């Protein structure tokens, strides 16, 4: 049971990684002069869209939480709207945090916001898919020993590693190397992406190694 779960998790994560790789290579067939550094914003949008799409597809295919008994249309619509609002809120709050961290307030607003969108895609979208727009569940998952399944455990790991990746991504900005990727917010977006991918790779492995110790209340 557990091993098959871990396998499913691994496949899901591989699909996510694959979507990020695709977002790097596919646009160059359709767009001229596409490169990650020069047309950074375009890549950011494409990457966010790809990752969101893959997450949604995985959610629809896998349906990890089968508890939604009420399936009336109005319920679904309000749920969708709520998800949408949550996502926007998370984008704005990330934006606020970036500005508090020293991102320029009036210049490069679009760049900062797209970084916020990307980070939200890596963190909030999986949360919304897995937990739904339920703040209580979020609080539970992100508190100590709050995870009740390997999915939630991997959610913790990917979220934290994305955020830490973004945090570490800010380090090279003051260096005077004059490289194009040192510009705001490229290093941070790259950090976030690497962090996310690292989280995706690490979490199945980590869960596999610790599968003996991991016991969930519900299992």
């Amino acid at each position: 049971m557990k091993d098959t779960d871990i396998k499913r998790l691994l496949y899901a994560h591989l699909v996510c990684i694959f979507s990020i790789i695709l977002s790097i290579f596919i646009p160059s067939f359709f767009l001229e002069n596409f490169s990650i550094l020069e047309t950074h914003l375009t890549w950011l949008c494409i990457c966010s869209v790809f990752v969101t799409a893959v997450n949604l597809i995985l959610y629809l295919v896998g349906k990890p939480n089968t508890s939604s008994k009420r399936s009336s249309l109005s319920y679904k619509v309000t749920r969708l709207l709520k998800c949408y609002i949550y996502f926007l809120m998370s984008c704005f709050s990330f934006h606020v945090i970036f500005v508090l961290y020293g991102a320029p307030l009036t210049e490069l607003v679009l760049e900062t916001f797209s970084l916020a969108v990307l980070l939200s895609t890596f963190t909030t979208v999986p949360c919304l898919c897995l937990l739904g727009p339920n703040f209580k569940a979020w609080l539970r998952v992100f508190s100590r020993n709050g995870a009740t399944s390997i999915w939630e455990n991997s959610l913790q790991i990917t979220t934290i590693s994305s955020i830490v990746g973004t945090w570490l991504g800010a380090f090279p900005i003051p260096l005077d190397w004059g490289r194009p990727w040192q510009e705001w917010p490229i290093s941070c977006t790259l950090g976030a992406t690497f962090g996310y991918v690292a989280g995706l790779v690490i979490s199945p492995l980590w869960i596999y190694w610790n599968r003996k110790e991991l016991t969930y209340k519900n299992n």
Partner: protein
Amino acid sequence: MRLGSGAFAACCVVIEVLGVALFLRGFFPAPICFSSRTENEAEPPAPEPSSGASSNWTKLPPPLFSKIVIVLIDGLRDDFVFGSKGVKFMPYTTYLVEKGPSHSFVAEAKPPTVTMPRIKALMTGSLPGFIDVVRNLNSPTLLEDSVISRARAAGKRIVFYGDETWVKLFPKHFVEYDGTTSFFVSDYTEVDDNVTRHLDKVLKRRDWDMLILHYLGLDHIGHISGPSSPLIGHKLSEMDGVLMKVHTSLLSEERETLVPNLLVLCADHGMAETGGHGASSPEEVNTPLVLISSAFGRKHGDIRHPKHVQQTDLAATLSIGLGLPIPENSVGSLLFPVVEGKPMREQLRFLHLNTVQLSKLLQENVPSYKKDPGFEQFKVSERLHGNWIRLYLEESSSEVLFNLGSKLRRQYLDALRTLSLSLSRQMAQYDVYSMVVGTVVVLEVLTLLLLSVPQALSSKAELDVPLLSPVFSLLFYLVLLVLSALHVIVCTSAGSQCYLCSLSWPAAGGVMVLISTLLCAVTSALAKTLARGKLLSQTPARSSSRRSELDLLILLGTVGHVLSLGASSFIEEEHQTWYFLVNTLCLALCREVCRSCFLGDDCGPQHGLHAEEEPEGATPALQAKRAGCSVLELDTVSKGPSPVEVPSGCERWMVLASPWLVLTCCRLLRSLNQTGVQWAHRPDLGHWLTSSDHKAELSVLAALSLIMIFALVQRRCSPASKVAMAFGLLGVYCYRAAIGNVLFPWQQDNKDISKGITEARFVYVFVLGILFTGTKDLLKSQVIPTDSAARTLGLWEVYSGLVLLAALLFRPHNLPVLVLSLLVQAILTTFVWRPLRHDAAEITVMHYWFGQAFFYFQGNSNSITTVDISAGFVGLDTYMEIPAVFLTAFATYAGPVLWASHLVNFLSSETNSSALSHACFCYALVCSFPVSAYIILVTSLRYHLFIWSVFSPKLLYEGMHLLVTAAVCVFFTAMDRTNTKS
């Protein structure tokens, strides 16, 4: 001997200060005096080389110019003359540069771009050591060989008007002088009028050979309002007028005497975009150098991009121009265009003289000088020169002579350039012995501190200092013997280059005793720790100690900061590191706050609370908190929810909001002063406020800030000091109004600006009064042990006295820094530290981090440029060294000092009696860790390209910071003593 950990830490830091001072003495060696020079005074000039044939040119060539006028304009940047500003405001100079008989260059000043070392460089042609910055304020007599001393020895009459520094450097060299003091930065008209008023008289008299004018006004304007201020234009026009006056007078004289004169327009350093100077940005380094003389040919066409030369080249050129020997320590090469119009033989003669001087300097400094490419080139050229002279004397055809001569000239110029370059590289000599000894002392102290961490942070806060036993141990005597032997060997082999060797033997012996005592103490502490470690491993009692993410962050942050000091960019942008760390700290605190507020409730089914949350569940604040919370959820070491009482209602929301308030404050302050290097040119609020158009806004802001300061400070003061505080803050505003920084609402017109002596002294009286009351209360609490209220009150009064002093010394646009620092302290104390019950060590490190961040919020950086020396002259009539240095240091380090004294206040109100000594120990450790690491880094990077521009200023800052830390630790210990007694 048993010592409290606070007293122990204070002792350690004091010893460390000694070690760092020794290191600094070795790192910044005093300029090397060549022992041979005094004897060489009468050395004859090098004769013209001539192979075989006898040349009659063995004396120095005659002077090229009969009179030289040097107009030195302090802070004149190259684009003020050669750029658009020059065209607009200096029409006469522009005409001379473009069409007149002149040669223009861009002279590069070497950092430190501060006046005194630059004057030395201009007049001696040598590269002054970095330590000259420190002596900048108090310049001792220049003993080195210089153009001035050579000219005086040759009987030339020199007249000087301008900056007093010159008079101090060359005390008996001028036949007539009038020095102006440069310390009142706010005055930019009188300093220059003082120079110009002599001009008419002296130009008419004509009984001098050299006239030096040093104008300070431009630099003062830069310090006040930056290089884009409208005042700059006026000043440049004024300077243009001065130049025209001097030039026309020289021309009219030439018409009578028919001997050409030379007019030199130069600058000591440039001006950064922020208006200061001292560092090595292109704006500070590039200065114009225009030589004007009717001996030069007229040019045609537009020359907008002059050649880059070194500032040190002027000394050699002036010497040649005056027919004097070149100063011996000069590393500059002759500005060749000056002699270009002369016959070939004379040109070669001048070049030969210069190369001979440089190669002599090279011989004295470099043991393997024969392998130097410059020296080889020199030898080849000299031989060729001899051949050329023979041909010349044999009167060969002029065409052959000319072709050979121009080839030779090119070779000489190459040799000059190479020699000059290798000499500049050779000038940096380190006194490695003193550096090593200093490093050893610092490292031993750090090891001792690190080894005594477990003991010092135990609940007793006391530790055994093994002092007596090592002194009588065999190891001590052995080490002492070895060290003394080493000392003797080093000193006998290296000569008098080392500072330690020049010390008297008791002092050097004292250092040796100190090192060996420390070594023995470290050894015994190590042995003790090992024994304890063995004991602990036998009883695996508590292997997983309680460690939270906050501790992890603090540890990682400290280590990360130390590691970042290895990169020059991270030193230049150190403020970013601290802002980043402080922000992350706030988010980590936010996470702790969240956990204590939510998770305590989350365990039980509390529907009422969730009902309160759900509708507003998606507010940005909460969402953001969630995001912030997860930032540092790194490890899953189990830690139960801390036993914290959950506040209710309004206070709960305040607790939740407080980290965000702090973050907002930090963000506001960050945009107040842009510092560093890469983004320093960005517009910031500080510049907007200080520009003359926004005086009204600045006044309102300053007034509001002062009111806020009063509101924040007065709540814990005694009534008497409350009144004193109010009057003092009022006095601060009056002082700023008197010196013209802010306006009174009832007088809109610009009244004449005074120096505000009375107002500032009025405030000083209140500062001293408040400090005195505080000290009295502290003494009272020491006498009456039960009176802990008096103690708290006294500490707070000392603190508020310091706040008042800082309010007086800060520039008005920096007053919000003070307000927000008080606000952040209040918020964190009430809503975070008290409720969450952090331990003393955590709180200390947080205070240290915030102190560092506020150091940079004030607008400080790691370059000398940003030190606000005007703070040292608040309320002083004349320059007094000790008060000025103290005030400047306090104003610069106000952030860390205020946070440290707040730490004392906060911890002394805690019930835990050992908190204060824990805090003292932690503070000492956290401060000395970066210094020790940095000393090692600098030693290993001492041949780095940026060693003088980036690493050395930071080293000075670190040393100064350690000194401040030592003072703070001693204060802590004094407070701690009263605590243990009570």
